[in-house]
């Protein structure tokens, strides 16, 4: 079997990085983030990145780490609150930001992975999101054309993987990871727990192995909680 497992995140990214590249990153807020790979990307020193990610992390975690070091030139996201450094760079014009509605973002990434160059959606029709985009009427309603997104490199986080590269995500840590895993010919996954091939039931696989080129252990697995809300015991 082809070996997809790499001993470290650095090794898993070796030879893949170049300045000005586009990187898609899974996760929602700080949930399901490829923490180890993001830190390895930062430490590589690669610059001028275009990053496709729903959010931009917080000041000192997730993609916020690459903002601190000014390695990101452009972001495509649906929501970038919770990040003061991002705000500063955005207001000063140091970073280029494209806002994309969350569902449209997910579908643009899905379409990119599925070889569909563009699609029509009602979302954003008649708003600033639709400005400059082709508009068509279907069944009497306004739709705008949105184009697919692909990336030079995709980084995802999975809960479990077998050596073949079949992935399983856990709870809402799944989020953007399965679509991000498809939008590049070079997807690197960081894995919390490797299991023997065959241990993930074939019917239960979330991301089939064809999408996964390289894997590494999630050495950094902090899983920070952004908003801890609890109730009293019943």
């Amino acid at each position, binding site marked *: 079997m082809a070996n997809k497992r790499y001993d470290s995140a650095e090794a898993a990214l070796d030879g893949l990085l170049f300045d000005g590249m586009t990187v898609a990153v899974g996760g929602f807020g700080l949930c399901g983030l490829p923490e180890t790979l993001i830190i390895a990307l930062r430490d590589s020193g690669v610059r001028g990145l275009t990053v496709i990610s729903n959010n931009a992390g917080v000041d000192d975690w997730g993609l916020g780490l690459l903002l601190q070091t000014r390695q990101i030139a452009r972001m495509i996201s649906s929501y970038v*609150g919770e990040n003061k450094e991002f705000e500063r760079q955005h207001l000063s014009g140091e970073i280029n930001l494209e806002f994309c509605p969350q569902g*449209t*973002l997910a579908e643009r990434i899905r379409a990119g992975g599925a070889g569909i160059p563009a699609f029509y959606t009602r979302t954003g029709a008649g708003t600033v*999101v639709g400005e400059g985009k082709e508009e068509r009427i279907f069944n009497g309603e306004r739709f705008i054309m949105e184009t697919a997104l692909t990336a030079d490199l995709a980084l995802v986080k999975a809960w479990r993987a077998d050596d073949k590269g079949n992935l399983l995500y856990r*709870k809402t840590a*799944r989020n953007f990871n399965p679509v991000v895993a498809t939008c590049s010919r070079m997807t690197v996954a960081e894995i919390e727990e490797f299991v023997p091939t065959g241990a993930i039931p074939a019917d239960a696989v979330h991301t089939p192995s064809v999408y996964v080129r390289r894997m590494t252990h999630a050495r950094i697995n902090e899983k920070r*909680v*952004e*908003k801890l809300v609890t*109730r009293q015991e019943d």
Partner: protein
Amino acid sequence: MPWTRHQIAARAARELEDGWYVNLGIGIPTLVASLLPEGIDITLQSENGMLGLGPYPTPDQVDPDLINAGKETITELPGTSYVSSAESFAMVRGGHMDATILGSLEVAENGDMANWIIPGKMVKGMGGAMDLVSGTPRVIVLMDHCARDGSPKFRKTCSLPLTGLNVVDMLITDLAAFKRTNRQGPFHLVELAPDVSLDHLKAKSEAHFTW
């Protein structure tokens, strides 16, 4: 006497019907989850990829892999399912949800709404709001009737950048509840908060509505 946040949410909860799948936004809409009428089975969706939201966790139930779209820790229920972000918005865009309840900065008399850009503040992004309002057949907006400076938020046209065009089906404010039966018609006043007069409501609204 105007309705409190809690009463606005409770009024919205009364609109929900047994078996519905509903998305709740952050703020007052979140309160709706704890005010659902007895005997009504509502499945709550969270657009980050969860269908069947449970209550907040007890301290020992906290799981960092389990959050809602507001990034708060949450729990699952028997019958919960997890999906990817693409699948989550496919069920929204495809019109499979029954209702979405969310806050807004402005609602116009033609059903336009604006809730994602606050003047003078950094634009944080629209998140899933545009997808939710354009994909869901029943959109219920909960908001204060007037802004802090007293200016009406229920307007002839929205002054702020739009979230969706002609998408609002019901508006519940601290002063009144308005509904329209179709998206070509005007909003109709269906309920006034206690001791709020029609004249007062009209004075505090820029929008045209019927009563």
